[in-house]
C-alpha cells in the first residue's frame, strides 16, 4: 500500500466514482423495474395521456402500419425559431420510453457529436441503446472515416489542427523579429501534416469506440433506413439486420454539397477529402465564402499554397456583415484573391492534370477561366435524409433537414432529431452535444430542461480569427429598431503585433447593445487573435444578462486583447474615430 500510494490514490478515486455511478445506476434500474412490475396504475396513466395507438401497440406487441398512427399522436407541428416564449408553451411530452417488446429502448442513428452524446447519456439513465454509424465514401476520392462524425473526422478537429499548423508557420516568421535565429527557408511538409492530423483522428476514433464499449452502448457500423416508425433496417458489411426500438433519435448530420455543373464531382473535392489529401493541394480554387470556405482558404494560404476564394453573393452569410467584410478584407490583405459575384460553370481536366475552371460574373455576365491544381467545393452542406427512408416512418422533411419542435421531437411521436440534421438551428458540435444530452435526460432521466439555441458563441478560424456571441448588428436592428440599438466599437492594437510589425488594420471589436435603460448587451463581436478563447467567457456573461455598465466597469487584464471589451467607449452613433491613439491610454 505504502509503496504506491500516489498511484493508488488516483485509482481509488476512480474506483469510488465507478462504484458510485454504478450504484446510482443500479438504484435507477431497480426503481424502474419496480415501477414496471408494481405501479401498473402509473403506466395506464401514461397510456391515457399519450395517443391511443400506443396502447394497442403495447397489447399486440407487433409493429403496426407505417407511421400513420404516430402522426395522429403528435401535437400540431410548430417551429418556434429560437423563440424562448414559444419554446415553453408546449408541454413536456409524457410517454412511455422504456421496456416493451422492442429490441432496444432507443436507437440513435448517427455516431457523431449529437448521436454519441445522446446514446451515452441514455445508457447512463438506464436505457438499452444501440447507435448506428455509417460513412459513405466521397464520390471523388472515396475518402471515408471512422466513428465520431463530422467534427472529429472532417470538421472542427482537423480544421483547427491545420489552422494551428498555418499559425505556427506565421509564428516562425515573427520569431525572427523577436530575436530567434530562424532559417529563412522554412517550408511545410503537407504529407507529414496530413499524417499527424490523421493519426490524431484515428486515436480519437479508438477512444470513442472504447468509450462506447465501456458505457455499454451497442455500436452498429451500418446504414439505417426506416421500415416503419418502430423498425429499422440496418445495412451492415455482413448483410442486413432488422432492429426495433421504442424511440429513435435521428442524428445523421450532413455532408458537403456539389454544384450541378460539368466536372464538379469528377474533379472537385470537398472538406471531406481535404484533410486526408495524399498530395499537396497547390493552387486551389475555393468555391464558397461561408466559414468552411474561408477557413480552408486561410490555412492553405498559411501553409504556402495559393488559394482563391470564389464568392457568389455575400461572405459569411448569417454572420454580422460588417465583421464578415472585415474578415474578407483581412484575408485579401494577406494575399488571398476573392472573385466576387462569380459562379463556376465547368471544371475540365487538362492533359497535365491541372483543372481548368470556367466561371461567370453574375452581374456583368462576363465569362473567364483559370487553371488550378485543386478545386474545393465549400458551397454548403446537405442533410443526410435520403438514405433514411423517412416516408416509411412518416417523418416530414424540410429542405433536406428535419423540422423539430422545442423538444427535438419530429412530427412522429417516438422519433426525435438532433444535431446538424435539424432544420433552422446552428450547426455546431457543442450545440449538438448539449441538445443530445438534454434529450436523453428528458427521455430517460425524468428531466424537463430543454435546449436553448440562443446566444451560442462561435468562432471562424480564419488567419485573423472572428468570434461572436448573440445578435449581429443587423439582427438587433431588425428586432429592436435602429433607434433602440447602440453599437460600441473600436479598433485595437495587440501588444505582440508591434515587434514583428503585423498588420493591426483589422483588429476590431464591437458590442451591440440596448440603447436606453439597462443597456443590455445583445451581441459581442471580436476580430483578432485567439478569438474563440476571448469570446467564450463573455458568452457566459451575455447569457447572464450582461449590460454595458457591467462591461465597462469590469477591470481588464493587461496586456491582453480581451480587455479591449472593457475599454469600449465610442458609439457608432457619435461618429467619433474608433481608432486608438496609443496602447495604454
Amino acid at each position, binding site marked *: 500500500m505504502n509503496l504506491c500510494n500516489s*498511484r493508488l490514490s488516483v485509482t481509488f478515486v476512480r474506483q469510488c466514482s465507478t462504484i458510485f455511478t454504478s450504484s446510482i445506476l443500479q438504484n435507477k434500474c431497480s426503481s424502474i423495474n419496480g415501477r414496471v412490475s408494481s405501479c401498473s396504475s402509473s403506466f395506464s396513466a401514461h397510456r391515457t395521456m399519450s395517443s391511443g395507438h400506443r396502447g394497442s401497440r403495447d397489447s399486440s406487441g407487433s409493429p403496426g402500419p407505417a407511421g400513420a398512427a404516430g402522426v395522429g399522436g403528435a401535437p400540431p407541428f410548430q417551429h418556434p425559431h429560437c423563440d424562448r416564449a414559444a419554446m415553453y408553451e408546449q408541454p413536456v411530452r409524457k410517454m412511455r420510453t422504456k421496456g416493451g417488446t422492442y429490441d432496444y429502448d432507443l436507437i440513435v442513428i448517427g455516431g457523431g457529436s449529437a448521436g454519441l452524446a445522446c446514446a451515452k447519456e441514455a445508457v447512463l439513465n438506464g436505457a438499452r441503446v444501440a447507435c448506428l454509424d455509417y460513412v459513405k465514401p466521397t464520390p471523388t476520392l472515396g475518402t471515408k472515416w471512422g466513428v465520431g462524425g463530422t467534427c472529429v473526422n472532417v470538421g472542427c478537429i482537423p480544421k483547427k489542427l491545420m489552422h494551428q499548423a498555418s499559425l505556427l508557420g506565421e509564428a516562425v516568421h515573427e520569431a525572427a523579429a523577436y530575436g530567434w535565429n530562424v532559417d529563412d527557408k522554412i517550408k511545410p511538409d503537407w504529407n507529414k501534416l496530413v499524417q499527424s492530423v490523421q493519426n490524431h483522428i484515428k486515436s480519437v476514433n479508438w477512444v470513442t469506440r*472504447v468509450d462506447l464499449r465501456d458505457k455499454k452502448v451497442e455500436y452498429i457500423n451500418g446504414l439505417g433506413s426506416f421500415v416503419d416508425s418502430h423498425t429499422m433496417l440496418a445495412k451492415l458489411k455482413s448483410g442486413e439486420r432488422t432492429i426495433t426500438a421504442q424511440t429513435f433519435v435521428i442524428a445523421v448530420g450532413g455532408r458537403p454539397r456539389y454544384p450541378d455543373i460539368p466536372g464538379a464531382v469528377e474533379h472537385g473535392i470537398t472538406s471531406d477529402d481535404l484533410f486526408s489529401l495524399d498530395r499537396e493541394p497547390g493552387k486551389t480554387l475555393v468555391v464558397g465564402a461561408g466559414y468552411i470556405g474561408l477557413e480552408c482558404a486561410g490555412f492553405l494560404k498559411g501553409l504556402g499554397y495559393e488559394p482563391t476564394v470564389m464568392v457568389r453573393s455575400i461572405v459569411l452569410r448569417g454572420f454580422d456583415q460588417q465583421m464578415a467584410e472585415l474578415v474578407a478584407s483581412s484575408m485579401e490583405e494577406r494575399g488571398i484573391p476573392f472573385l466576387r459575384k462569380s459562379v463556376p460553370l465547368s471544371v475540365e481536366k487538362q492533359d497535365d492534370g491541372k483543372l481548368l475552371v470556367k466561371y461567370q460574373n453574375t452581374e456583368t455576365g462576363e465569362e473567364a477561366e483559370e487553371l488550378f491544381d485543386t478545386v474545393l467545393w465549400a458551397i454548403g452542406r446537405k442533410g443526410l435524409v435520403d438514405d433514411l427512408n423517412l416516408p416509411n416512418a412518416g417523418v416530414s422533411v424540410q429542405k433536406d433537414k428535419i423540422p423539430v419542435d422545442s423538444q427535438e421531437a419530429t412530427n412522429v411521436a417516438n422519433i426525435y432529431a438532433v444535431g446538424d440534421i435539424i432544420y433552422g438551428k446552428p450547426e455546431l458540435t457543442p450545440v449538438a452535444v448539449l441538445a443530445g444530452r438534454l434529450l436523453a435526460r428528458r427521455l430517460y432521466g425524468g428531466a424537463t430542461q430543454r435546449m436553448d439555441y440562443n446566444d451560442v458563441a462561435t468562432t471562424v478560424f480564419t488567419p485573423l480569427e472572428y468570434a461572436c456571441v448573440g445578435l449581429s448588428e443587423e439582427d438587433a436592428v431588425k428586432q429592436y429598431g435602429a433607434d433602440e440599438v447602440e453599437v460600441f466599437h473600436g479598433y485595437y492594437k495587440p501588444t505582440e503585433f508591434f515587434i514583428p510589425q503585423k498588420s493591426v488594420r483589422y483588429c476590431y471589436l464591437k458590442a451591440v447593445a440596448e440603447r436606453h435603460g439597462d443597456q443590455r448587451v445583445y451581441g459581442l463581436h471580436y476580430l483578432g487573435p485567439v478569438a474563440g478563447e476571448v469570446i467564450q467567457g463573455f458568452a457566459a456573461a451575455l447569457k447572464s444578462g450582461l449590460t454595458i455598465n457591467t462591461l465597462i466597469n469590469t477591470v481588464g487584464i493587461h496586456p491582453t486583447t480581451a480587455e479591449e471589451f472593457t475599454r469600449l467607449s465610442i458609439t457608432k452613433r457619435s461618429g467619433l474615430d474608433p481608432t486608438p491613439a496609443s496602447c495604454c491610454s
Partner: protein
Amino acid sequence: MDMLLKASRLTTLSSVIKPVTPKCTITSLPTIFGRIFRRFYAVNTNPSKIMVVTHNVKGYEEFSKKMEELENGNEAVHVLFSGGKDEHGQSWCPYCVKAEPVIHDALKKAPGNSHFVHVDVGERAYWKDLNCPFRKDPNTHLIFLPTLLRWKQPQRLDGERCSNQDLVEMMFEDED
C-alpha cells in the same frame, strides 16, 4: 511455453479469488468445469492453431531492440507494459497484477501470427522518475502502468481499463 503455463495458472488463480467478472460466461466459472470449458473454447476459437507469438522483455534496451526486430513484419504487435515483479512473481503495481490474467486470457482473440510483447518496465523507483525512457519515448509516451497498446497504431488502453475483459478483447480483435 513456460510463460503460457504461468499465465494459465494465474488465470485460474485470479478467477478463484475474483470470480465476479462483468460478463459471466461458462468459461469464466471458477470451477473444474470452467477450466475444462476454457480449454475447450481456447482450442476452438483458434481452429487454424496459429498461435500468438509471445515475447517477454525486461527494461528499455531490451524493449527497443525487440520492437526494432518486430516492427518490420506485417503482423500486429501488441505490447503490454507493466511494473516489475518481485521474487514471488508479484508486481509492485496493483493494476498490473489485476490486468495480467485478463490480458493473457483474452490473447486467444488476437489474430494468429500476431505478436504479444510483455514489457517489464522495471522497479517502481525507476518508473516513477519522470525522465524514465519509457515515458520519453515518442512511440510509447507512457503515463500509466499498465498500458496495453498496438505498436504504432491508435489502439491503446491504460490503467484500470486493462483489466476490463470486454475492452481488452476489443483491443485484440479491432481491425481498424
